[in-house]
């Protein structure tokens, strides 16, 4: 009976249409799993936009939906970077917003009224389903095994390395960019394999979409030429390569230049030069190919050498001259930091201050990729075995992806697809070998070997083991052991992915969750409390000064103008805010007046032990300000003579007098019995007497003291400075000038 049903099932699985149906069902299930595993945060908290950048994207999308595409394209945002404003339409990657806007309008046209917020929240999970499908397509191009693609899709769907940037609510460019990345690679492989202009053009189209969506498009711009270059070096130049590459480059570059933020960068900056160089190189090769068919080979050799060296030298010369003359921009600082991880820390503190720009720690690879990370080399090895054009691509991608992922935490994202593909190839290879129910007849093999033995030996790699007769693999024991082990690994992988997603990547970071002693969940909602306060209690054009991390959130949640935000385009402006935060009140006040600041917002974690607060980020503010005003702000002065960064009684005078310190600890002592004031982040006891603030009034402090908002005082009505005005309010008598026996300043009218 059971044998019969197995037979029936096995037979049912053999028809072509049944297989297709099964595949469709499996892919749909994978997409479902990919989406479902990203919904932890929605279920646990609510449908809310996460973190920082997504708040800007959300705000921009709302603007797009409200005002239409052309208004969005020409959007001048006067509510950020006060008073400079931001040419937002020309300085963002519009792909994400336009995608959501299109979905919104499509749903409207279908009379399904969905709130734009929900579209934004659920966009990333939806696209993760598509990414899984794209990974399936890409892997299918690599291997004839039908299972590899499905495995790759499954891996791609739940790999934490990708989930980290695509949970529900993580409405960031990466949400759609990873799908576009994988799909562009798939189209590239397709175009290369077929030498088809159509697929090349499709590849260019999706490349254009990618450029419109994410700054990481440069990864494609560099990887495709590199692949082409490696192929050429391997002597695999073909008309297929020529057709697909030139089609992609010409159309893709034109498409990318339509994005205002990119503009003329593809012909101006060094990052884009490899693509252009390979384009020119391919033209030369095509020309040489033609010449070779036209003239005798003897003369051709000489011609080739002369021509090749001459062109190369000329090209190099032009590049050097153009770069030094400033026609081509030299490599940007962000690019240098990819090669030297210490570069940014010295030269561009603003890049180094972002945690996701730090080099990756080793455990992170295992954390984000689990078992895929050790299957990955095996998959790459299998690619070496076949080494067709498309396998070269995987090898090249694997090499570069690994390097960049090692340099920057954030680039783990670009590594994940190739890891999934390579691991899927490896696993499917193992499974195909060990789950094959048939035991091949050894004699057949023997005959086969003999029949074309010489040819095979030459073709096979030099590994000895491969030429030996295969033993052991056919036994049921080994098959079942391997199959069980693999199943266990796969199950563990799913467990790990779910655990990581649920514990590490599903926190909105706008709302903090903690556990009470009895195990129940306690929500700390200080951010939204403070932003709501701002929204309800301040003028609509009240300018808020805060460190740039909170700019997007203030703009999105509180809807108030900010001085600086996460789009860190103007280092000087950020340094100005840093200077205001790290200077004495008397220095900060004119800066705040000049920038028309009404409120200052600081994040303080001392009461709750929330370590991501402004005092811990303070040194970055000092460093960035010191970069612009080295004479006025000095990092050294914030450290004690013994080189410690202290906030307690031992803190330096500069530290104690800085506006940030005063704002953080103002009135904090009043929470505690005398002498007991404690900072729970730094774990230190604070001095008994707290700082005094003269130019600011405390306006709001959230429930757990995480957010503190201060109002900037107006100029004194009587023309006094704020310190003496405040002293008068406290009842101190003004010292009589006469007693000091100093000659009075004579008044001149």
């Amino acid at each position: 009976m059971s044998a019969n049903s197995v037979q029936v099932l096995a037979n049912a699985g053999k028809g072509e249409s049944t297989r297709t149906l099964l595949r469709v069902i499996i892919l749909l299930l994978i997409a479902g799993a990919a989406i479902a595993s990203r919904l932890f945060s929605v279920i646990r908290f609510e449908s809310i936009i996460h973190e920082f950048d997504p708040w800007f994207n959300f705000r921009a999308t709302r603007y797009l939906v409200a005002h239409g595409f052309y208004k969005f394209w020409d959007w001048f945002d006067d509510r950020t970077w006060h008073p400079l404003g931001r040419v937002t339409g020309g300085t963002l990657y519009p792909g994400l917003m336009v995608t959501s806007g299109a979905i919104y309008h499509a749903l409207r046209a279908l009379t399904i009224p969905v709130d734009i917020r929900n579209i934004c929240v659920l966009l990333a999970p939806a696209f993760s389903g598509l990414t899984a499908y794209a990974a399936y397509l890409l892997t299918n191009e690599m291997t004839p095994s039908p299972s590899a693609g499905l495995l790759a899709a499954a891996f791609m769907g739940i790999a934490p390395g990708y989930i980290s940037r695509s949970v529900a609510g993580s409405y960031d460019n990466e949400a759609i960019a990873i799908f576009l990345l994988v799909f562009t690679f798939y189209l590239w492989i397709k175009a290369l394999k077929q030498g088809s202009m159509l697929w090349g053009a499709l590849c260019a189209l999706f490349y254009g979409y990618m450029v419109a969506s994410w700054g990481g498009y440069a990864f494609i711009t560099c990887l495709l030429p590199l692949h082409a270059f490696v192929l050429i070096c391997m002597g695999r130049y073909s008309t297929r390569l020529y057709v697909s590459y030139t089609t992609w480059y010409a159309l893709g570059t034109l498409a990318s230049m339509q994005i205002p933020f990119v503009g003329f960068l593809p012909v101006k900056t060094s990052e884009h030069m490899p693509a252009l160089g390979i384009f020119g190189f391919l033209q030369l090769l095509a020309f040489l190919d033609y010449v070779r068919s036209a003239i005798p080979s003897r003369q051709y050799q000489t011609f080739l050498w002369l021509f090749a060296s001459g062109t190369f030298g000329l090209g190099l010369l032009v590049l050097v001259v153009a770069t030094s003359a400033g026609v081509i921009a030299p490599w940007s600082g962000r690019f240098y930091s990819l090669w030297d991880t210490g570069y940014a820390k010295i030269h561009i503190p603003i890049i180094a201050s972002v945690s996701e720009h730090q080099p990756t720690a080793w455990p992170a690879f295992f954390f984000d990729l689990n078992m895929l990370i050790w299957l990955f080399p095996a998959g790459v090895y299998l690619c070496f075995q076949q080494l067709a054009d498309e396998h070269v691509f995987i090898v090249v991608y694997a090499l570069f992806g690994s390097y960049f992922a090692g340099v920057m935490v954030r680039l783990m994202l670009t590594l994940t697809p190739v890891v999934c593909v390579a691991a899927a190839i490896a696993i499917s290879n193992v499974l195909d070998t060990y789950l094959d129910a048939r035991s091949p007849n050894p004699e057949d093999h023997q005959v086969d070997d003999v029949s074309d033995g010489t040819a095979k030996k030459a073709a096979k790699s030099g590994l000895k083991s491969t030429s030996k007769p295969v033993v052991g693999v056919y036994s049921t024991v080994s098959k079942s052991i391997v199959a069980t082990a693999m199943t266990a690994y796969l199950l563990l992988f799913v467990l790990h992915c779910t655990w990581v997603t649920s514990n590490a990547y599903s926190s909105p970071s706008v709302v903090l969750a903690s556990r009470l002693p009895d195990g129940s969940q306690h929500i700390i909602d200080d951010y939204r409390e403070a932003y709501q306060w701002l929204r309800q209690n301040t003028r609509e054009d009240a300018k808020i000064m805060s460190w740039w991390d909170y700019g997007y959130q203030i703009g999105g949640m509180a809807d108030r103008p900010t001085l600086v935000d996460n789009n860190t385009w103007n280092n000087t402006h950020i340094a100005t805010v840093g200077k205001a935060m790290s200077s004495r009140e008397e220095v900060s006040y004119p800066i705040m007046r000049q920038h028309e600041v009404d409120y200052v917002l600081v994040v303080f974690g001392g009461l709750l032990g929330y370590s991501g607060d402004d005092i811990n980020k303070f040194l970055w503010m000092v460093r960035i300000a010191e970069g612009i005003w080295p004479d006025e702000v000095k990092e050294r002065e914030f450290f004690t003579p013994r080189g410690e960064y202290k906030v307690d009684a031992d803190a330096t005078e500069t530290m104690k007098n800085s506006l940030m310190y005063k704002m953080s600890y103002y009135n904090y002592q009043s929470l505690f019995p005398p002498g007991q004031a404690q900072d729970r982040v730094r774990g230190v006891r604070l001095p008994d007497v707290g700082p005094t603030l003269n130019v600011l009034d405390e306006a709001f402090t959230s429930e757990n003291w995480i957010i503190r908002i201060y109002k900037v005082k107006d100029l004194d009505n009587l023309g006094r400075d704020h310190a003496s005005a405040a002293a008068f309010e406290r009842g101190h008598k003004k010292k009589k000038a006469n007693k000091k026996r100093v000659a009075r300043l004579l008044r001149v009218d």
Partner: protein
Amino acid sequence: MRSLLSVLLVVFVAVVSAISTTGDRLLVILEDVADKASYSTFLGDLESRGFKIAFETPKSESLSLFHLGERAYDHVIFFPTKSKGLGPNLTPQILLQFINAKGNILLTLSSGTVAPTSFVSLLAELDIQLPVDRTGLVVDHFSYDSASAADLHDVLLLPAPENLRRDVKNFFGAAESDDEVIAFPRGVGAALGSGELLTPILRAPRTAYSYNPKEQAEVVDDLFGAGEQLALVSAFQGRNSARFTLVGSAEMLQDKWFDAKVKAVGGKSATVQTFNRKFAKQVSGWTFQEIGVVRVNWIEHHLNEAGASNESNPAIYRIKNDVAYTISLSEWSWSSWTAFKVPANDELQLEFSMLSPLHRLHLKLDPAQSSPEAAAYTVSFKAPDQHGIFNFKVNYKRPFLTNVEEKNTVSVRHMAHDEWPRSFVISGAWPWIAGIGATVTGWVAFCGLWMYSASPDKKLAIKKTQ
């Protein structure tokens, strides 16, 4: 329409408050309410100008400058009191709060009484210094009234004050003749700090000095001040335009000095009628916001380009737009609003600023939009080639005039994608356009040739087979 509305508004406002622009509730604080008889002319003048006067003594229980957090009076006059302190109702903090709430104070001192500590610390906050012992006497051995102070020389005779600076309107002084004389009997001189909110109205003559008659009767060794550094009557105007005037001699406001005939030492004429009554009116009128009050009626800015919409006060402009800005100003002069005329040597300026002014322009009087009640000043200019959030800022602060500080925020955006000149308009682009045209036609021609020319090889091959 707009000017008509503003005229209506002006008329309406003029009817509602006939005397001061800030109110008519005047509190007079005296040592003894009976003392008011000696100031009857001065107070009578104030009453006839429409003030409702209340009298209190400093120690009175009912005295309170505030009621339910609002000012209970609009103006306060302090006449000299003998007590050292002023009691809990008139602490310096309360007085300062009164100024911050736009209340006006006229404070008088006298050399006969010691100034209360409350005033001294208030004056210290305003950067006005009194002599060390909180009293003093200003004497001048060269210009005193020989009729009443032939021995002590403590009744100073001063010419009516002249213009402080060339660019400032003179509110105090004689209009017709120059030989008006102010009698300043037994007064205290104060030294002013150098803050811009302080202005001396009446300064001591070059030969005057201040000393303490009780302690320095024999020899004056430590001089508090002399000459023009001694301010006899000084004015302070806060940033909120609240006014505070310090009159060194309360006696000069008394009836007897209003009517007195004085004789300058060595003077040419015999006796002269003092100018005190008129001067008292000017000083009190200025302090209580009856003169020198400038009001902004309306501000209007618009796009000044042909074919553009004529919308008033748009929130956004584009870089390099032509923009026109107009501000209408009136000045309150005793009983009515008049057109505010900028003094001949002065300029009203408009700043178009982001962080710092990118334009600072001279606003010119526009007679077309002006009326007898309001003067309109206008300027048109081209917005700078810099996008950002800009302020139209008129910051006109002059001594004796209330502060005009008007800020209108607009955004200046960048060029939209369809506002640039088209490529065929730019002559530099013609070679490139020609290049594109050549490529397109060449490509089409090539395709046509390729498709419609028969292959010679084929023909050849066909021939061969034939």
